[in-house]
């Protein structure tokens, strides 16, 4: 038996950060079930997502200069082993997702108590953690198949979370079922695309795939892979013609879950798109450029207008926000379709800014629903007087949604308009402004309902409980903070965008062949 001493320098906690980012919520989820007590489960969920948030901050400060961190799972070197690869883009997204999760959990402790029966709380927090694990995993991994695995973890738990709304409204079940069918089709298309990629390149490491595709050039297998991945993730992104699942899922899910999903799930799907369209398939290929310019960009424009029009005519606040999400996704697609560093900067900063804006707004709806029991406008009349703090936060979120100067929404729209001008496409810049005016209309309807109508007879002043108000105001104030200090977001977004557009450094292992 060979017993030679094998040299190994022990890894420090600092080296382990990338895996801890995913492993902590992953292991906390079964722990919730084993403990089986709902208060303990909440604490486990909160502590682990807070830990994930701290880790994401530690990772983010390391990569803001454009470098990347690589972690080999199980000690197997990439491209054979699974690699976790943290760069400016996904560190920034990790920061957003884990931050939103930490913010939503205190809110959830109050709102879920009212919307979901107590016996389900433990499992709900466990599912929440699994969803968080999946989203963080999709972001951090550098392995294409691993993306699919984590995507499924997050999707499956999302369906369960959406279905939890069934105790208030049975339609949550059909909404979850619709989402399940559409999401599964999307995931299947995505994995078929990965199959084609594997066939064409013989590897699953994303950086490695990119290098191999660059080597062999354009061919039909690669194109098929591109098409499948585009459509599959498109379903998850809810790009305009594939958005059918989104309004119902957002409307009928419990408030806290809607706030979490709206701020993170579609954003992560857009991240995967960015990663594949710019990191794996290079925009050097004509098919990539043509798809982005002639398919993604027009669909983005249609979404901006069609979904905004539909949002204007909604009678339900939550549903209106869901349609406005589809419209806002249109802006992000527009940034992608411009295929320039500025366009991508706009997309990435809008991912973040829209994330916090929608988190604030959906938490606001949740706080309103806490007492009125419904999010229909006619049940919310005069809430500005009975719930002044909640309503004020909603107004701030609404202004950020429109893109009023001084709010986060303005910063990213400004960059987007700049990107359009950079290309000389001024009609597009005009369209961005025009669709923002539509947002004014639907946000105004909310303000009118909250402030300019008389409250119901005998409605006393009754503010939402503090565990809901504090996260709501943190989100609302960060909308303002990032509106005045847009440099932080835009700088990271620019580093991330430039990282996507420059050719990846080939893996050291490949230099030999």
């Amino acid at each position, binding site marked *: *038996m*060979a*017993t*030679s*001493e*094998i040299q*190994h320098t*022990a*890894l420090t906690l600092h080296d*382990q950060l990338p*895996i801890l980012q995913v*492993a902590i919520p*992953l*292991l906390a*989820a*079964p*722990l*919730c*079930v*084993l403990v*089986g007590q709902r208060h303990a489960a909440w604490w486990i969920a909160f502590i682990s997502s807070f830990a994930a948030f701290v880790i994401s901050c530690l990772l983010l400060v390391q990569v803001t200069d454009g470098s990347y961190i690589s*972690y*080999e*799972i*199980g*000690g197997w070197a990439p491209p054979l082993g699974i690699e976790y690869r943290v760069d400016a883009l996904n560190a920034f997204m990790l920061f957003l997702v884990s931050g939103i999760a930490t913010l939503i959990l205190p809110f959830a402790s109050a709102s879920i108590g009212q919307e979901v029966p107590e016996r389900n709380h433990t499992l709900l927090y*466990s599912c929440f953690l699994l969803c968080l694990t999946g989203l963080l995993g999709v972001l951090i991994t550098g392995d294409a198949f691993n993306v699919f695995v984590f995507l499924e973890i997050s999707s499956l738990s999302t369906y369960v979370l959406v279905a939890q709304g069934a105790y208030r409204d*049975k339609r949550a079940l059909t909404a979850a079922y619709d989402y399940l069918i559409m999401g599964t089709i999307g995931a299947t298309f995505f994995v078929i695309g990965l199959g084609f990629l594997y066939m064409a390149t013989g590897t699953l490491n994303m950086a490695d795939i990119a290098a191999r595709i660059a080597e062999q050039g354009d061919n039909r297998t690669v194109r098929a892979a591109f098409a499948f991945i585009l459509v599959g993730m498109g379903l998850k992104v809810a790009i305009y013609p594939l958005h059918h699942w989104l309004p119902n899922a957002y409307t009928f899910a419990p408030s806290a879950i809607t706030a979490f999903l709206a701020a993170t799930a579609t954003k992560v799907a857009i991240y995967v798109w960015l990663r594949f369209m710019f990191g794996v398939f290079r925009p050097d290929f004509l098919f990539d450029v043509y798809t982005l310019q002639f398919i993604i960009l027009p669909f983005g424009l249609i979404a901006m207008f069609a979904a905004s029009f539909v949002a204007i005519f909604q009678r339900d606040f939550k549903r209106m926000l869901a349609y406005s999400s589809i419209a806002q996704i249109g802006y992000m697609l527009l940034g992608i379709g411009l295929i320039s560093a500025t366009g991508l900067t706009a997309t990435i900063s809008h991912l973040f800014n829209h994330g916090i804006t929608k988190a604030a707004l959906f938490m606001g709806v949740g706080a309103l629903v806490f007492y009125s029991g419904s999010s229909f406008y006619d049940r919310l009349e005069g809430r500005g007087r009975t719930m002044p703090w909640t309503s004020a936060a909603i107004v701030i979120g609404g202004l950020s949604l429109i893109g009023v100067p001084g709010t986060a929404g303005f910063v990213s729209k400004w960059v987007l308009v700049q990107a359009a001008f950079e290309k000389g496409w001024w009609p597009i810049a005009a369209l961005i402004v025009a669709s923002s005016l539509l947002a004014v209309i639907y946000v105004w309807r909310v303000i009118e309902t909250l402030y300019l109508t008389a409250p119901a007879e005998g409605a006393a002043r009754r503010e939402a409980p503090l565990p809901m108000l504090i996260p709501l105001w943190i989100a609302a104030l960060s909308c303002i903070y990032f509106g005045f200090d847009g440099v932080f977001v835009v700088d990271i977004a620019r580093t991330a965008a430039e990282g996507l557009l420059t050719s990846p450094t080939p893996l050291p292992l490949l230099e030999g062949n």
Partner: protein
Amino acid sequence: MRHHLILRVIVKLLVSTMILYALYVQFHGDYSPGGGFQAGVIMAVAFIIYGIVFGLRKVHAVLPPWLVHKLVALGVLVYGGTGVVNMLQGYEFLNYGSLTPHHPEHGQHWGILAVEAGVGITVTGVMIAIYYAFAARPPRMSDEEW
């Protein structure tokens, strides 16, 4: 009660054999086809067939639903816990070589055994939980509930 005498006797005989075979598949997984997933399914089948023949109440007495849910969670923890142990020893997550630093190959065997045990526990739990969920389905919803 006296119906299906042959079925009852055969199932009683088979259940123990199935469990034994599941354990064989589990522990022989790293040398021959098999492993945690297959073993978990075979193990679950032993409980499911017992439930089909003797009724849900009997099998609930052996393996109550709450215990099944804990098993599902426990398996994941065993899998992830293995990775945590590797990390505590100063290696990467799931680098089994850390278990016997002088001879990483042995560590790989130990690691696979631990991880497959986790897979087996979870798969058993999930399969039985699915069976329980279908078999214990409450009657259709009443009209008032809609």
